[in-house]
C-alpha cells in the first residue's frame, strides 16, 4: 500500500555526502602506498612473534629438563631406599606416639654412631666424677689407690 503522505515523497534521493574533487583521483596511489607500508610492517611483527616463540620454546625446554632431573633424582632415591622422614619429624612422631612404642623398641631403633658412643662415655665419666665428689675422694687418694 502506498502512503501518499510519506516523507520519502518529499526527499531527494541524492547522496548528501561529498569529498574533495581530487579525492578519488589520488585514492588508488594512496591505497597502494598503504598496502606496501602494511606489507613492510608485517615481517617485523612476524619476526617479533617468531623470536618470542623461540624464547618460549627455550624456557619450556629448560623447565622440562629441570622437571625430568627432579623426577630422576626422586626415582633413584626411592630405589636406594632412602628414608625421607627428617630426624626432627621422626622425633616429633615418636614423642607424640610414645605410648605406642616400648622402651626396648625405641632403644633398638636409635641409630648408634660415633657421636652416640662419645655421649655414652661422657655420661659414664660424669657419674664417676659425681661418685668421687659424693664420697669425698680427692685426687691424691685416687692416685695413691692406682
Amino acid at each position: 500500500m502506498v502512503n501518499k503522505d510519506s516523507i520519502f515523497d518529499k526527499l531527494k534521493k541524492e547522496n548528501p555526502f561529498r569529498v574533495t574533487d581530487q579525492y578519488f583521483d589520488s585514492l588508488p596511489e594512496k591505497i597502494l602506498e598503504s598496502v606496501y607500508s602494511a606489507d613492510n610492517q608485517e615481517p617485523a611483527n612476524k619476526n617479533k612473534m617468531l623470536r618470542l616463540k623461540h624464547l618460549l620454546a627455550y624456557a619450556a625446554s629448560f623447565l622440562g629438563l629441570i622437571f625430568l632431573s627432579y623426577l630422576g633424582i626422586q626415582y633413584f632415591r626411592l630405589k636406594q631406599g632412602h628414608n625421607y622422614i627428617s630426624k626432627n619429624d621422626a622425633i616429633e612422631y615418636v614423642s607424640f606416639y610414645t605410648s605406642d612404642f616400648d622402651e626396648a623398641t625405641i632403644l633398638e631403633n636409635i641409630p648408634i654412631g660415633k657421636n652416640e658412643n662419645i655421649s655414652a662415655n661422657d655420661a659414664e665419666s660424669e657419674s664417676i666424677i659425681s661418685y668421687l665428689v659424693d664420697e669425698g675422694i680427692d685426687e691424691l687418694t685416687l692416685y695413691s689407690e692406682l
Partner: protein
Amino acid sequence: MTDYKDIEILKLFQTEGQKERAFLLLVEKYQKRLYWHVRKIVIIHEDADDVIQNVFIKVWKNLEGFKSNAQLYTWLYKIATNEALSLLKTKKKNSIVHYEEFLGNSLSGDEYFNGDEIEIRLQKAILSLPERQRLVFNMRYFEELKYEEIAEILDLSVGALKASYYHARKKIEEFFKDG
C-alpha cells in the same frame, strides 16, 4: 578507461608482474561504490578514508585466495561493511557521549556534507535505527542494491531483509512525524 570485467582483473592479478596493475584497476573500479557505502555507515570522511584503505589492504592480501565462482563485488562489500562496523564499534566504545547522536549533530558543521535541513534529519533518523536496519536501508534506498545482493553481502535471507527495510522506513516516517 576500459572497464575491465572482474574475471579479467582476477586473471591479471594472478599473472606474474601484473599484480599491481590488476590491483589498481580493481581499486579504480570499486573505490567510489565502496567509499560511499562505508561513508554512509561511519559518516565522517576521515573515518571513511581510513576504512577504505584498510579494506583494500585486506583485498590485496586475500585476493589471490578469492574463489572466482563468488561475486567479487559482494566479497568487497562484505569486507567494507565489516571494516566500517568494526571502526564504528571502536568509536562507540571510546566515546563518552551517545555516538550516533554525536554523528547526527556533527553533520550541520561538516564541510563534507551538502545536505539541507531535511537531509540532516533523514541522516539523524537513519542513525537512530538498529544496526541491521540501518545497513539495509542505506543499501536499498541510496545504493539501490537488489535484495538478493544485500542478502549475499549480509548473509541474511531476502525475507528478513524485506522486513528490516519495511521497519526501517516506518521508523524513519515516525521520526519525521515526531520531530
